[in-house]
């Protein structure tokens, strides 16, 4: 009997592996309680869709979260789920995954949960390359506590707790993920569900920590924070859709692009001032060095468009894989542990 089977109660119901599931099957009975119009709905829908699409058995999926509007996510998934305490979702997921490495584990967090109180756990999870998918719903505000600034709020933002404007540089989720050596780093936005679907699918397939920053509009406390990249009329001018191996282009006619001047990026218009397609920076998500990914992540309005897609995607051994490997090697070398031998080890003596 394998370890994992030991943990389960007698299944009387067929495993989902046998079934073909639809998005609906992933909807839990709990009523979704986000504000009407909240950007999180789109994320929920796409995740349900993605799991159904990939045929993940519901009993094999676990959603883990912290606290925040976004962190209510697990309640809405008809899978296993644990809604933890504020900021600690990556640590919870660590335990879940190391107890049962063959589960599909998803962490859902917010910019407050994941980057304010929980920043450290997030970083350590990524550097360990635990095989989980992390969805960070960034709405640049604390939604659930009704509108204080968050670590991603732009400098100077006036909120309930910063009536004179914030005086802190915001944190860059993607830069932090790259610095922490996450093996899969991506960004998408709630409004572009097709893009989100592709990124989610890629993340789910990735072995190791997949970190996705999802820009998510909070209609109540930070409405319109991402208009430039969500509004159909503006977005083409303000976002780059990264494709591995493709030159970096943007604009409604795809005539603008990014070139490199030394180590500094610059915007060019193809055909103008001699700029040609061959000069454009070409995306490479698979290179081990972080330089390109970090450079692309640093592109920011107003000077630059913002990049969406997969910044980095590398294959490296996972924490859970290595952990089980050490256990298997030990068993191979010493045999499955024998309690009597363990207890009777060291210097012993008889009393009779």
């Amino acid at each position, binding site marked *: 009997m394998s370890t994992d089977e030991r*943990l389960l109660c007698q299944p009387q119901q067929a495993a989902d592996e046998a079934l073909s599931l639809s998005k609906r099957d992933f909807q839990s009975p709990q009523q979704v309680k986000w504000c009407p119009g909240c950007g999180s709905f789109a994320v929920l829908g796409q995740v349900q869709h993605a799991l159904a699409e990939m045929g993940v058995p519901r009993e*094999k999926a676990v959603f883990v979260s912290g606290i925040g509007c976004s962190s209510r996510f697990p309640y809405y998934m008809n899978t296993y789920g644990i809604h933890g305490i504020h900021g600690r979702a990556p640590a919870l997921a660590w335990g879940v995954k190391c107890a049962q490495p063959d589960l599909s584990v998803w962490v859902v967090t917010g910019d407050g949960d994941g980057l304010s109180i929980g920043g450290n756990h997030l970083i350590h999870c990524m550097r360990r390359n635990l095989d989980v998918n992390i969805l960070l719903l960034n709405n640049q505000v604390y939604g659930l506590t009704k509108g204080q600034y968050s670590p991603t709020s732009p400098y100077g933002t006036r909120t309930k707790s910063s009536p004179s404007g914030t005086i802190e540089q915001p944190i860059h989720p993607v830069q932090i993920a790259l610095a922490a050596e996450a093996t899969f780093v991506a960004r998408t936005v709630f409004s572009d569900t097709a893009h989100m679907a592709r990124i989610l699918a890629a993340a789910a397939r990735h072995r190791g920590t997949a970190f996705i920053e999802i820009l998510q509009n909070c209609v109540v406390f930070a409405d319109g924070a991402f208009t430039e990249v969500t509004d159909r009329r503006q977005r083409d001018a303000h976002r780059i859709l990264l494709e591995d191996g493709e030159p970096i282009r943007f604009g409604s006619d795809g005539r603008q692009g990014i070139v490199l001047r030394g180590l500094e990026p610059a915007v060019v218009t193809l055909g103008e001032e001699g700029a040609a397609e061959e000069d454009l920076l070409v995306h490479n998500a698979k290179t081990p060095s972080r330089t390109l990914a970090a450079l692309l992540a640093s592109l920011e309005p107003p000077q630059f468009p913002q990049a969406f897609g997969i910044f980095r995607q590398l294959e490296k051994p996972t924490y859970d894989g290595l952990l089980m490997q050490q256990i298997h090697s030990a068993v191979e070398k010493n045999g499955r*542990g024998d309690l009597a031998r363990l207890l009777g080890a060291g*210097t012993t003596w008889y009393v009779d």
Partner: protein
Amino acid sequence: MTRLPHAVDRKFVQVHSATVRFAGDSGDGMQLAGNQFADIASMVGNMVCTLPDFPSEIRAPAGSLGGVSGFQLAFADRDVFTPGDAPYVLFAMNPAALKVNLPDLMAGGIVLVNEDEFTAANLEKADYEANPLTDGALDGYRLIPVPMSRLNAEAVAPMGLSRRDAARCKNFFALGLALWLYDRPLQPVLEWLIHKFRRNIPSMAANAASLRAGYHYANTTELFRVTYQVAPAKLPRGRYRRLTGNEAAALGLVVAAERAGRPLLYASYPITPASEILQELSKYKEFDVRTLQAEDEIAACVAAIGGSFAGAIGATGTSGPGLSLKAEALGLAVMTELPLVVVNVQRAGPSTGLPTKTEQSDLAMAVFGRHGESPLPVLAAATPADCFSMAFEAVRLAIRYMTPVILLSDSFLANGAEPWRIAVPEDLPDLSANGRISPTDFAPYRRDSRTLARPWVAPGTPGCMHRIGGLEKEHETGQVSYEGANHHRMTTLRAEKIARIARDIPPAEPFGPPEGDLVVVGWGSSFGVVRAAVEEVQEGPAEVAHVHLRHLNPFPPNLGPLLKRYRRMLVAENNLGQLRTLLRDRFLNDATGLNRVEGRPFRIREVVTAIHAELER
């Protein structure tokens, strides 16, 4: 193998127990010498109790007062429960060791010093203005100066070690002296050396030579007027080994997980004096033990909860500051009703306090230290080896009642060691009961009618998908609920579940008369000292009993009536009265507290004095 001629007029004196302390520089190997002596005393059938005393600095300057490392042990022909109040024999390997340890020595006791180290430079490092070996400072003790450095150097010269390595053998010289003094065999140490240094023959030979030289020197120089003999104790028959509290706790967790048929997931962040549990467990990979060294205590606790959610035995270990940090996560475990074991190895607080010293001051935190109504069981181990049983018990309760459990140990238990009759795994209870449920009956908060535990169903189980978390949940269905009446019901159920554990634990048993003048109540590592003190007082006319508690929340069900059968009550603990608070609240019994926080266990004398004072009130 090793036959030494006995000096002709060797005199043997029979004693019931003996207390010896080895003290020297951190680099002098005193812990090793002490442990070897303890092993041998154990093997010849004595009861043995040990107390190491490390410096708080990692490696203080050689010869400095801050760098003194000590190891005390008591061995006896009957149960000994304490490492002894005051040593009768002190080995002092340098002036600093003498300075630090002399105040503890029994009047008239033996001081064995390495006289070679009493140089002007070393005396100065130890803040001695004059040489205590010659200025009369040791009047009232029996001073035995031995040129250990020189004799050791001579003994090991043939092995051609470096000077430094050669000098490091002198702890074995001291050990040799000690073995002669207490008429103990050399053989087991030699065997141990052969095994330990099988890949370093010169060191093996050098240590063996130094050991023999010490023994021989005592023998031939008639260093001691007498040899003390301590007869074997009457222990239950069986195979024994010595265990420290931390080793015992680690083993208890492994065995419990195996008896539950689940992997152990132990997540921890290093902290003195709990780190050894993590370190021990990280060696047991072939038992499918998964050790996670976390980024902090919160992550450790939360990862263990995640492990439990996914069906493993989630456990974590820490000490005071870490327990404070885990407070919020423990609340999550209370609310989600997941099994979790927290081994809290107490040290002197508050805050960072005295991190290498012992104390019993986390009891109140363990019982009350979470926001909201969040009751959980609290256990405490009584002796080093008891950490094994109590770790097992913690896992048993955690699974059976779906609850986090705090097991209190302390620095004295963690580092101290005692003989342990090796447990037979099959004789221990089978813990695989919970978690066997059929999906048709399943609801996440549908409780067992007897234990009130909810079912433990891990991800991977088809048809039982459910979501839990820190928000209040509806009775049975486990849906999020903000409804007031449901919250009251769930809060009461959680409290009742923990209260019912009282039915499932052994009753409190008085040691001594079933009623009488005084009951001395203790918990945790004060067990040994209090027991010894009560035994002593019991030889007098007063009717005094000892009640020792290993279950602190809930209390054993008979505790209230039991305590009322004594006219007075004394609660002895190394804090300012935390158990006393629990007892007064619970039973409205007046009680006097014996409370000292001096970074060390009580002395038997202190307890005896307090008992007499209480009897005279």
